[in-house]
């Protein structure tokens, strides 16, 4: 890291430009071949808003905004956030949602899982190790964090493991051979057998998950079989499975694609876990590259986040207000990452942002957050579940990150009380939208009472979207 800074410093002293981000090199080639001209990148204030939402899960405070605008160094802002406890907490929540969903049911100790993930993210543990531990975990739900991943998905573990860690959906193959999918019912059955020995028993502290010894003849036709065709080499089937998973290329690509999706709002493979003959990566070279980068850096998640966030691709705008580009062209630009599709804040982002804006005195928002470095993520999760709406929580698609809000969830949002601590119109705009009101807005809103303005700002599209 230090060397990179030094290198960039040297280059700028020598008047040269820092080497282009490899992501942008790959995308430039792709855009040229499609004849797309990418949208411009956002201004500094919007960049700070975007990066703070994506790495800390909230909008920047007034003081953060002020100090950044005094010295708008984007790389330094990325570095500050990547080193913060907020990044650890927020990303542990993101991974918990991905692994176990938002509402996990009674038998799952969601918070123990999240804390375990937070410890790994804080220590920057190699992510292949994290995946290995999650897939091969044994122990008790209240004590052993990673075991909660399989307990949350105990009904059909192999489907969730394949989705998250291999980026493929096997669940269609659960019932039948799909004519357009590569995986057959036999593949599903063979993969499922790796998890067959799992035993669950009631103990104090929840459920204990362990494996019965898989006592099978090594020549048995019914031994489990990995998608690559490999068979387990020991009786510890699940550990064998975990090792096979983290060693294949689809694993690193799936993780790369997921991190990309978390930051850009759309996977290179979309849906993020739907790699199939029909759903290929929109930019294959980029898909490969992110996987390769993970392997080259020994699965350093922070390094990947840093690389993505410092690319132009990450910083692109959507179209201008008056753009008359049609829907098909829009879709092309979005899938090639030539423009940024506005993405509704995740419910967690809205809850955290709402807190920053309303519950702490605006001027001191930054200090307050640093004091309580571990904010109460259990409460954040509860609020988020309400905002998404029950039906979406229990019966969504495959990726809980992408769940759409329901109308009862929106009502919850609209019913949330918000108390303005300042009545200054300018400060309210800066705290919520990170910009000053336009002359027109100033004129319309000057006579409206502060509480009403703040409410409108907290629910308007410009606030609710990460744009």
């Amino acid at each position: 890291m230090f060397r990179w800074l030094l290198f960039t410093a040297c280059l700028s002293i020598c008047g040269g430009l820092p080497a282009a981000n490899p992501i942008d090199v790959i995308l430039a080639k792709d855009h040229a071949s499609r004849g797309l001209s990418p949208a411009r990148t956002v201004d500094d204030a919007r960049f700070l808003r975007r990066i703070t939402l994506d790495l800390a899960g909230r909008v920047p405070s007034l003081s953060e905004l002020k100090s950044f605008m005094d010295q708008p160094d984007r790389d330094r802002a990325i570095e500050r956030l990547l080193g913060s406890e907020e990044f650890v907490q927020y990303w542990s929540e993101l991974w918990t949602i991905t692994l176990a969903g938002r509402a996990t049911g009674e038998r799952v100790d969601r918070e123990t899982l999240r804390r375990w993930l937070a410890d790994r993210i804080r220590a920057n543990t190699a992510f292949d190790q994290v995946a290995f531990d999650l897939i091969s975990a044994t122990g008790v739900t209240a004590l052993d964090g990673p075991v909660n991943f399989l307990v949350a998905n105990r009904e059909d573990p192999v489907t969730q493991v394949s989705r998250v860690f291999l980026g493929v959906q096997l669940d269609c193959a659960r019932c039948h051979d799909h004519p357009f999918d590569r995986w057959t019912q036999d593949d599903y059955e063979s993969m499922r057998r790796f998890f067959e020995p799992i035993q669950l028993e009631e103990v104090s502290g929840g459920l204990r998950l362990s494996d019965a010894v898989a006592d099978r003849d090594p020549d048995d036709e019914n031994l489990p079989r990995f998608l690559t065709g490999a068979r387990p080499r020991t009786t510890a089937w699940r550990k064998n499975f975990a090792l096979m998973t983290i060693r294949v290329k689809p694993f690193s690509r799936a993780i790369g694609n997921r991190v990309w999706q978390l930051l850009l709002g759309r996977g290179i493979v979309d849906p993020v876990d739907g790699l199939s003959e029909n759903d290929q990566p929109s930019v294959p070279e980029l898909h490969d590259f992110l996987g390769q980068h993970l392997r080259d850096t020994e699965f350093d998640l922070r390094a990947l986040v840093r690389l993505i966030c410092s690319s132009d691709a990450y910083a692109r705008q959507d179209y201008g207000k008056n753009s008359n580009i049609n829907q098909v062209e829009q879709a092309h630009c979005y899938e090639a990452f030539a423009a940024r599709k506005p993405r509704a804040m995740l419910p967690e982002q809205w809850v955290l942002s709402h807190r920053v804006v309303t519950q702490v005195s605006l001027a001191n928002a930054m200090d307050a957050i640093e004091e309580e470095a571990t904010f109460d993520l259990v409460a954040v999760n509860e609020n988020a579940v309400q905002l998404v709406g029950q039906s979406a929580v229990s019966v969504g698609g495959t990726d809980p990150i992408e769940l759409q809000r329901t109308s009862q969830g929106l009502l919850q949002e609209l019913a949330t009380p918000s108390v303005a601590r300042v009545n200054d119109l300018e400060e309210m705009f800066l705290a919520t939208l990170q910009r000053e009101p336009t002359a027109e807005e100033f004129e319309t809103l000057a006579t409206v009472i502060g509480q009403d303005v703040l409410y409108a700002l907290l629910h308007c599209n410009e606030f609710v979207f990460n744009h």
Partner: protein
Amino acid sequence: MNHFNTLNRRSLLTAASAASVSQILGRAVVASEQSQGRDDSRRPRFKRCVTLWMQGGPSQFETIDPKPDSSNGGPLTSVASGVPGIAFCETLGKLAERANEMCLLRSVGSKQGEHERASYLLHTGFEKIDSFPRPSLASAVANGSRQGGGIPPAVTLGGAAYGAAFLGPENAPFVISELESALETVHRARGNIGRLKLVEQLNAKFGQVSLPLKQRSRQIQTARELLGSSFADSMNFETESEQTRRRYGENGFGNRVLAARRMLEAGVRYVEVQMPGWDTHVGNFDAVKRLCQQLEPAWISLADDLKANGLWEETLILWMGEFGRTPVINGQNGRDHFPRSIPVALMGAGLDGQVIGTTGADGSALEGPEHSVADLMYTLMDLLGVDPDQEYTTRFGSPTTPTDGGSRIPIG
């Protein structure tokens, strides 16, 4: 009919909407068209539906399919119904008098004996596959109605909800886990109605180039309408007279059924009322007796009030759960899961006391016609005016139908 035209139209629809619609729908289905074979003369029999969902799996023996002469029958007695040859269990003695307004299905069965998966199956007609979510019957009915005015087309009163999948979030049932807290939310959100105008003003200036922005703006508008609508008032069952509330039963289930009636009056097309407690592995007989003491008065009052308020002719009352229960009584005086037989009761104008199929002398096997859950779903869609033959084209290329290969159960 010109066959080529049909094909061309279908492929065109698929191609044209693939890019735009897949953004709305995310995964799943991109195009649909009216099925060609639909007989227009067969009008839907019902416009509205109240589903009484017996969560946990109701025992058919202690409700609508008693076997008093079998050793599987249990200790409770049976009573004659309003239809010769049909008896109900004593737990539903008053309801038995209404059997001439009902159609009892004793021919439906499945292989799914796990609560969550079976509930999904009975709500959507499909086995649960996370990567290909299916719309619930409630959202299929919602999809056909566009009354606007902020009235949600479908409502679920209870904790377990089944969404709209590819039919889009606007057709998902509005879920009310608890009436009291929902009323509280509505009350608080209503205080902000004036402010929502301000939100809409800000949104208009922000621009609506991309679809997600348009969707959110539309949602805000719908929410504002909902808050001002008669639906918001209909949740408040406490405005009903003391006498009415007592008739439905002053308990959670009674209150929810009463609220359901008010919602139909406000214009909701489909209301599901859930009643937990039917998973009677232990002490089945006492438990079912107790449950029926709440179920029966609410059900009968709903039917009576629908006749009084003019909605009866076009409203279907559907009673079911995720599966039936075993003929064999276990060591704890309970009955276990028995998906081979799923009891279903329909009540509504013109159903005239029919029975489809039989579960045999001791309830252990379906005899006569057997019907799948897909058949049940097909039949319910047909009754409720949802075209069960309408074809959709999925994003992975294959056409799909609203049911998993179902066909109509011959209800007269």
